[in-house]
């Protein structure tokens, strides 16, 4: 093989591989796409069920309970602002995208993180993959996804899912591993079973770390969901991308403001939920 021809032949190999995958796995990928869309659309349906001011009120109420009255007022004003600039439907689809992708990521990352926390071997095996995911520019994940799932929500969800995976996994694994030794001894000296050790001792000590992981995954998902506008994710990401292409500065700034508001509201809610968990006693 000639060195000068190598880039070309490498590219064509990759292309052939992807083509083979989409030819032979089209059934599978269509199914994956349908499931992803299903999750997203059910969430979106749910968020669009009540009128915008009811959703805004609900978010404010939740904020009141978790973070106090000042945050509740700020969240209410912020959410209503999103509606008044005419971006309510987009805000809700972004929310649905983020929530769907984060939930899927947590469903995989937390159980896997728990196992890795208990089995250092698994942790050592998974770590390089996570390092890779976190060092690569996030929009890289759009490319294989778009090749296999096509333009649309499914691709956006998969890419967001991948990016949201590492923080929750890492912090769950860390939390499970970091149980203070004296409590492990206490458990053993009290005659606990393996399950009891996990549920009654390791998990409670890991909770703050797991909560921090959930919050970080959520923030990563927000970052990705804007980038995923390029592949037709719908929502604010696509609004901003479209506005930039047509040089509609005002609209792109509106979209950016809505994203910032939504991110801040969710971040505070998640942080307050974690704090409320840790401080659920007086």
């Amino acid at each position, binding site marked *: 093989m000639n060195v000068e021809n190598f880039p070309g032949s490498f590219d064509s190999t990759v292309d052939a591989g992807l083509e083979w995958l989409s030819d032979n796995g089209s059934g599978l990928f269509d199914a994956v796409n349908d499931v992803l869309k299903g999750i997203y659309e059910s969430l979106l349906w749910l968020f669009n069920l009540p009128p915008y001011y009811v959703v805004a009120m609900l978010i404010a109420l939740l904020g009141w309970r978790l973070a106090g009255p000042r945050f509740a007022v700020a969240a209410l004003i912020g959410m209503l602002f999103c509606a008044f600039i005419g971006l309510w439907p987009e805000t809700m689809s972004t929310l649905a995208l983020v929530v769907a992708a984060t939930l899927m990521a947590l469903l995989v990352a937390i159980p896997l993180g728990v196992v890795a926390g208990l089995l250092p071997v698994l942790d050592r095996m998974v770590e390089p993959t996570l390092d890779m995911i976190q060092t690569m520019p996030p929009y890289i994940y759009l490319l294989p996804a778009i090749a296999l799932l096509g333009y649309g929500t499914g691709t956006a969800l998969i890419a967001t899912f991948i990016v949201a995976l590492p923080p929750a996994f890492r912090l769950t694994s860390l939390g499970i591993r970091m149980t203070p030794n*004296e409590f492990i*001894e*206490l458990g*053993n000296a*009290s*005659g606990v*079973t393996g399950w*009891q050790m996990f549920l009654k001792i390791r998990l409670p000590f890991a909770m703050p770390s797991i909560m921090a992981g959930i919050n970080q995954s959520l923030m990563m998902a927000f970052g990705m969901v804007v980038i995923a506008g390029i592949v037709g994710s719908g929502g604010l990401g696509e609004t901003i991308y479209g506005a930039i292409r047509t040089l509609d500065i005002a609209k792109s700034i509106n979209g950016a403001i809505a994203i910032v508001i939504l991110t801040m509201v969710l971040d505070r809610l998640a942080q307050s939920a974690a704090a409320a968990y840790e401080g659920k006693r007086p």
Partner: protein
Amino acid sequence: MATTSLDVNNVLVSCESVWKIFGENSAEAMKAVVERGLTKKQILQDYSCVVGVSDVNLEVRRGEIFCIMGLSGSGKSTLIRLLNKLITPSSGKVLVKGRELSSLNAAELRAVRARQIGMVFQSVALLPHRTVLENTAFGLEVQGVPKAERLKVAEAALTKVGLADWTKRYPDELSGGMQQRVGLARALAADPEIILMDEPFSALDPLIRRQLQDEFRQLTKELGKSAVFITHDLDEAIRLGDRIAIMKDGMIIQVGTAEEIVLNPADDYVAEFVAGISRLHLVKANSVMTPVALYKAAHPNVDVSRLPTTPPDADLDHIIGLAVANDRDAIAVMDAGVITGVITMRDLLRGVQGTANEYAHPVDQALAEVSS
């Protein structure tokens, strides 16, 4: 040793030449010890392994508080963890109520730990997200005791340690001394026969420590429990222990009552340790007295029966009080109506110094038995 350890009723815990060697090559190091009798230093050099516990034999009898005293690094914390197999011995046997721990399967070992051997830690290890009551009920919860019942038992245990009013609080609202009481209540709630105490009071200030020592001793005796108590404080060992084992470099160098150890230290190391200990309440009349026949021979004109008398187990403090009150320089020791000896001023002063009378005494015989 082998015959006595079969006496399950009186020996609750026993160790038979137990070793613990830490390190990656611990198995080979152990083999080398058995085959070639390497020393601690050689093992560290040749196998880069650390000897934690070295050839320990001990017996904890029913109803006694057995103190293990040693400085940090002496292996005492390792030794206590061998007694409930938190650490597995490299060689030798650990028996709890006649059953060898290493022969038990996982479920049996859990049952032994849950029901027969409780443990109290220096760090207390109260779960921060549980109330005092829930912490106390932890052992029972693990055993699957229904909630209402275990909380009732836990409350009773907290009442015993004087914390009945604190059940709803969280650990960080309690002082160090109170936390340690919760630790004790948690161990008592599971009603084990043996309680392992791993330096529980070391981190407390002196007054609270004394108070807890007295309470612990009283409670243990009242409930008929046996305890193995680890400490680096000889005063604590003397206040608490029915018997004391002194540990150094992973070995037990002397076992005996406080009086035996103070009067007849096994070596210079122990002697140095006990040098600063006040003898006044430790040394008993029959350890310092001159046998009556010898006294009569030396003082033919003293009528022994007219001397003030003291029982043989009275301590030096009491005898000094007697001598001062009666203004006499000799006190007779009366055992079951018979005068067995006389304590002269010389005997008394030697006793305060910590030297037994040179003329054969029960203590010497007891020591001879122990060391044989």
